[in-house]
């Protein structure tokens, strides 16, 4: 199930162009991809599962995942979690300052003419009551969202 392009460092990108893994069926699988590098402007990373970036995502860089996205660094680029419609997907970053943040069908950006309040704390973004909310990351609190995705629940229901 894992992509052959993502073998060595888990970079998964070649000259900024990504090659998603082969899929047996639509929907998010529960695989997680580890990106061990800085995602720079013009680099786009797309994966049908969760993505963890060990590094920063620069402005102009893009992460698209059908599951959750976690950035162990500063997120300044564009991120799309739950790209195939999973509204339970979350985006987490040590420094969450995205150009644009998308979860499933929701798109948000920082307001204009407002100095970004940089908390310096890890934050988590998720969809709540049809809006993207961003809050301080509370260790332990993630269990409520990270463990399961919409697609898994559907699978369970369908037997």
């Amino acid at each position, binding site marked *: 199930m894992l992509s052959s392009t993502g073998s060595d460092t888990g970079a998964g990108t070649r000259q900024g162009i990504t090659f998603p893994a082969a899929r047996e069926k639509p929907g998010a699988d529960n695989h997680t991809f580890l990106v061990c590098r800085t995602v720079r402007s*013009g680099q*786009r990373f797309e994966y049908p599962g969760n993505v963890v970036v060990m590094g920063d995502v620069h402005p*102009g860089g893009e992460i698209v995942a059908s599951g959750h996205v976690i950035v162990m660094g500063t997120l300044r680029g*564009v991120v799309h979690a739950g790209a195939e419609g999973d509204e339970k997907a979350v985006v987490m970053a040590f420094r969450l300052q995205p150009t*644009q943040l998308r979860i499933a069908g929701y798109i948000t*950006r920082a307001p204009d003419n407002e100095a970004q309040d940089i908390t310096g704390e890890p934050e988590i973004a998720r969809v709540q009551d049809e809006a993207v909310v961003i809050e301080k990351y509370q260790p332990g609190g993630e269990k409520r969202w990270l463990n399961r995705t919409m697609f898994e629940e559907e699978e369970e229901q369908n037997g």
Partner: protein
Amino acid sequence: MGEVIVITSGKGGVGKTTTTANLGTGLASLGKKVVLVDTDIGLRNLDVVMGLENRIVYDLLDVVEGRCRLKQALIKDKRLENLYLLPANQTRDKTAVSRQQMVDLMAQLREEYEFVLIDCPAGIEMGFKNAIAGAEKALVVTTPEVAAVRDADRIIGLLEAAEMEAPRLIINRLRPDMVRKGDMMDIEDMLEILAIDLIGVVPEDEYIVISTNRGEPAVLDKHSRAGQAYRNIARRLTGEEVPFLNWDAGNGIMARLRRLIGLG
């Protein structure tokens, strides 16, 4: 039917993107319906200079490859009602579009907009050829440097070979104090070498650095000298006769006084 104008230079870093952003904003503030098209695929900047980067969802490639409708990709400016931006894609390169696709796209845009301004990439390769393919007019930007003027000359030759209407020249980053001392090429020197019509001269202005970093075109600032120059060029583009600012006269207190009493 709107006008499709490409803003080009050959050399990089002479101010194509800044000029595109300021002329587009200037034309829109004159009430014209304007769309800016960034054709620098893979190295897009116009969105950043316009302060619209965080609004991009679809781009030029999504439009030409049919992943979205043209209207979905157009980003409305945050300051002016009648100004739109079609951003470039950042993850691919210049070979991703063809000349025919650009011609079709520009034909579609000119139906609805009075001015279509195309921000051309540096160089003379595919990106340049694509950018000029759908344009009927060209503005060549140069700075008062030998290398920039040389490249502008090459570009003018290529534009003529492409049977474009006679391009017009914008001289950017001129420093009147250095010209007076003879340390910088003056306007006449450049016009003699390039032999095309001048449409405007933009003086070097620190405010340009501030405004591009902030994502607010200088043309909107009443006190910026470069902004004033861009406002004049925008008016000339609409066909208005606007006298050239007098760069030879000093801007010191004495010079201004002399001008005031009619001696300058």
